[in-house]
């Protein structure tokens, strides 16, 4: 760390320029509304989390009528995201998916090119993440389940939760505190290990 006065921890973006040769990978943070997606993105990100808008392509605004449009149509969706510098060349982007179910049809494009996903689950409201899990399975996105432990969460045996969520025995289920950086990092590590195992299994089967 230099002492030239440029290092401003409160403004990581001021010093967070990526090296010229950088490449990126992306991981999606999914789950029902209020399960802690944005919290997790915030806790592990190197940069202050930002919000960007993704626009729906298949229902893109009709240009001919654009000027006459008085109300913004529901064609954009906000994505909270953060970034983790993994090494000199590689940067990981984390995108928190929108929780509102009316945006689910957007997800095809969102998951394209992602290494995998974390599906956050609030054990007090398991059902709120059902759709997220279904979507991962439908799009064949590898994922891990992260049980975000809230202060008043009851202890549930993992197998009970696996059964309730109808999750394959191969899909890891880990507990976490999305507010905690180390805990959120461990969830990402669990995801990457899971991806490695899957890859190894595919290679072996050839």
């Amino acid at each position, binding site marked *: 760390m230099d002492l030239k006065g440029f290092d401003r921890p409160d403004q990581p973006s001021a010093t967070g320029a990526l090296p010229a040769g950088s490449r990126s990978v992306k991981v999606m943070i999914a789950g029902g509304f209020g399960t802690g997606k944005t919290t997790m993105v915030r806790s592990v990100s190197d940069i202050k989390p930002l919000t960007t808008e993704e626009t729906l392509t298949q229902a893109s605004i009709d240009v001919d009528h654009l000027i006459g449009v008085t109300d913004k149509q529901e064609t954009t969706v906000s994505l909270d995201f953060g*970034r983790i510098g993994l090494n000199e060349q590689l940067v990981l*982007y984390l995108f928190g998916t929108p929780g509102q179910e009316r945006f689910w049809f957007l997800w095809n494009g969102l998951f394209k*090119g992602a290494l995998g996903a974390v599906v956050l689950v609030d054990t007090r409201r398991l059902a709120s993440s059902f759709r997220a899990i279904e979507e991962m399975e439908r799009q064949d996105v590898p994922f891990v389940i992260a049980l975000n432990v809230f202060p008043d969460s009851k202890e549930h045996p993992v197998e009970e939760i696996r059964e309730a969520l109808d999750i394959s025995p191969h899909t890891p289920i880990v507990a976490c505190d999305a507010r905690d950086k180390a805990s959120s990092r461990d969830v990402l590590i669990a995801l*990457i290990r899971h991806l490695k195992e899957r890859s*190894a299994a595919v290679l072996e089967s050839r």
Partner: protein
Amino acid sequence: MSGPHRPRDPSGLERYYVLTGGRSGPAGPAAGLDVATLVITRGARTAPAPGTQYEHVPGMQHEHEEIVRRCRDPLSVAELGAHLGLPFNILAVLLTDLLEADRVETRDPIPVSSPSGRGPDLALLEEVLSGLERL
């Protein structure tokens, strides 16, 4: 324009219309852009000779110049969108212009396996893992 003016569009759609010349989505080289695609200004590292400027591209808007300026170091499409306050589709149109004018280059996120069936990339996963373990 005659008659009363409609109140300024709070959603910014008019601004987008002007910015993109009415184009509603990316085409051509930017069609595959991802929110995690990195954008890098061309020639940012090989500084132009003193006094020379990049040729002004006709039709280049302030937002195009902003992108060129901000992407001297690689920046994701998502970060650009957040910094410039532009949604993805609009940004993709502007990036198409810049790609066609050869002012920027883009690098898509590395997928873990290619659609061509090149197979899972264990080396990449290993790299991601060791990066996370250092956090």
